[in-house]
């Protein structure tokens, strides 16, 4: 593949990348002006739809299609909720976009609000992103001052208010209806769907929820056109009539046992191996990799042999993972115990389950307890069987829970039981014992 020229990250790390004047000097807000002065909202929706943009927040739903689910001719208000909760472990690309190039993303927010006829956009930001909060607040203030926000934008009668809303440290606020409940001032208990937010969302009004990276892509689609977007990435699989393709650039995070952790931009479809070797500087300390999580811990676990899997919307499924997720790859080396990795992952989910559905609340707790006892040398012969059963029976897919947190909690466990069975069985048989909190591979 010829070297790819970044688009979303093109201004990152340059002096003044956060300032509105710098952004305008680099051609910023031209897409907005073009849309508001020469296009109808429906034309903007059609543009995004024909680009084939799919949501970057984890589920990969086609963005333009989601926008058409709003009730036709609704008198308003319609709300846009921007999902800046980014709490999937090992994921940090939204942070980079907000901290380094806030106007690129903000322009996408304004364009989207224009397209879906929203008067108010709430950016729900996880509390931990204090720097993003301050950079974005400045960007929003500057956009008001220049007339890109507020009333009668470009003299076309388009009005928009944008507010930042800070979370309070709960992973479940990233689930779109948990986010809405939290915005409304309640506990972030996800809602049963349908109704979907496009029909009944924030404050019981039609609402569009989109991820930060998704909206940053919207800016470039309007600016450069759908054909440009479709020239990047992977077209639909002709053998699969339901595949919407994996078009466009994507941010990938690389972390864990690599020499150069960080955020990079590449076309969808890059393989895990390429990502690690070409951008991550290879596995650290001259070691080999044992495996990785392919897109946040909710998506499952892959072995080193599966590293040639392409990171597009179809690739992870071919190696029994849940999906592309957030595009965050975390590598663990050959000296890391899979028991430690699973212990860490199950602890996360048992801590973050919102507690609303019994299978999730109890199931995540059991999986953590079982991993804890295996780790301390008290594993039982039937434990892998129990883990597998619990993992396969909690979630939306088996139909036992309200939201997808439980699917994500089960996936890495069932992947590990299948893909690392020998190691897990060996550990239990030997009665190996880890008492320290330290992961073996940390040294």
């Amino acid at each position: 593949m010829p070297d790819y020229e970044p688009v979303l990250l093109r201004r990152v790390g340059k002096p003044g990348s956060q300032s509105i004047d710098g952004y305008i000097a680099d051609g910023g807000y031209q897409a907005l002006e073009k849309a508001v002065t020469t296009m109808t909202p429906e034309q903007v929706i059609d543009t995004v739809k024909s680009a084939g943009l799919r949501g970057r927040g984890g589920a990969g739903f086609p963005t333009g299609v989601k926008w058409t689910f709003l009730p036709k001719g609704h008198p308003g208000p319609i709300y846009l909720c921007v999902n800046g909760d980014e709490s999937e472990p090992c994921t940090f690309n939204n942070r980079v976009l907000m901290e380094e190039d806030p106007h690129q993303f903000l322009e996408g927010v304004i364009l989207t609000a224009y397209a879906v006829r929203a008067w108010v956009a709430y950016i729900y930001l996880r509390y931990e992103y204090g720097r993003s909060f301050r950079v974005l607040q400045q960007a929003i203030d500057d956009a008001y001052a220049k007339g890109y926000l507020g009333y009668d934008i470009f003299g076309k009668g388009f009005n928009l208010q944008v507010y930042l809303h800070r979370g309070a440290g709960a992973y479940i606020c990233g689930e779109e209806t948990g986010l809405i409940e939290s915005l409304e001032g309640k506990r972030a208990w996800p809602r049963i769907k349908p109704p979907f937010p496009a029909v009944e969302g924030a404050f019981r009004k039609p609402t569009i929820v989109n991820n930060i990276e998704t909206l940053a892509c919207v800016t470039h689609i309007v600016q450069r056109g759908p054909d440009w977007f479709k020239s990047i990435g992977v077209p639909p699989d002709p053998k699969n009539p339901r595949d919407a393709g994996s078009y466009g650039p994507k941010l990938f995070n690389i972390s864990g046992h690599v020499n150069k952790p960080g955020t990079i931009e590449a076309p969808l479809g890059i393989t895990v191996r390429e990502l690690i070797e070409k951008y991550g500087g290879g596995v650290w300390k001259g070691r080999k990799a044992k495996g990785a999580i392919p897109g946040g811990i909710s998506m499952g676990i892959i072995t080193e042999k599966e590293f040639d899997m392409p990171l597009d919307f179809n690739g992870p499924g071919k190696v029994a993972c849940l999906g592309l997720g957030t595009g965050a790859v975390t590598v663990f080396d050959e000296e890391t115990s899979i028991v430690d990795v699973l212990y860490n992952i199950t602890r996360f989910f048992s801590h973050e389950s919102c507690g609303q559905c019994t299978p999730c609340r109890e199931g995540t707790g059991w999986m953590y307890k079982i991993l804890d006892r295996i780790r301390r040398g008290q594993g039982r012969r039937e434990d892998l069987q129990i883990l597998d059963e619990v993992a396969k029976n909690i979630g939306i897919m088996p139909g036992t829970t309200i939201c997808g947190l439980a699917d994500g909690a089960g996936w890495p466990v069932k992947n590990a039981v299948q893909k690392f069975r020998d190691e897990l069985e060996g550990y239990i048989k030997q009665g190996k014992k880890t008492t320290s909190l330290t992961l073996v591979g940390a040294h």
Partner: protein
Amino acid sequence: MSYLSEDLRQKILAYLPRYPSKQAVTLPALHLVQDELRCVPRQAIVEIADLLDLSPAEVHDTMTFYGFFREEEKPLGRTRLWVCRSLACALRGGEELLSDVCQKLNVKPGGTSADGKITVEFAECIGGCEGAPCVLINDEHRMNVTPDKVEGLLADLRQ
């Protein structure tokens, strides 16, 4: 006489025009109060509820869902130091960092150093994984906190 200062009450009320419901101001109000008072005292809950036309039980319900807010029995120290324990950090020494910090300050996660200056918390992924092990000082990341940097970090926070 109200318990919350007039300034704090005005800051809370200033959020009302942003939302179509008063209840939506619950989280902003809790943040404002905790930032200033280092916890959310019971009387503050009553007064937030009063300002937002809610019952105190509703405010308390929301508040306690988020492990983030402290009741008056357990106020925060001057600085809140979050140490990440999730996977990317744990693979690079996050757990050792957490136990090292706790040992040096003689606290358990959640506790505050005897001088009242630092409250230590464990965090799930704080989105700074490229700089693992990573901590959050109130709401700002500090990255690559390797064992040799712990003393310096704590000295900064004690100043």
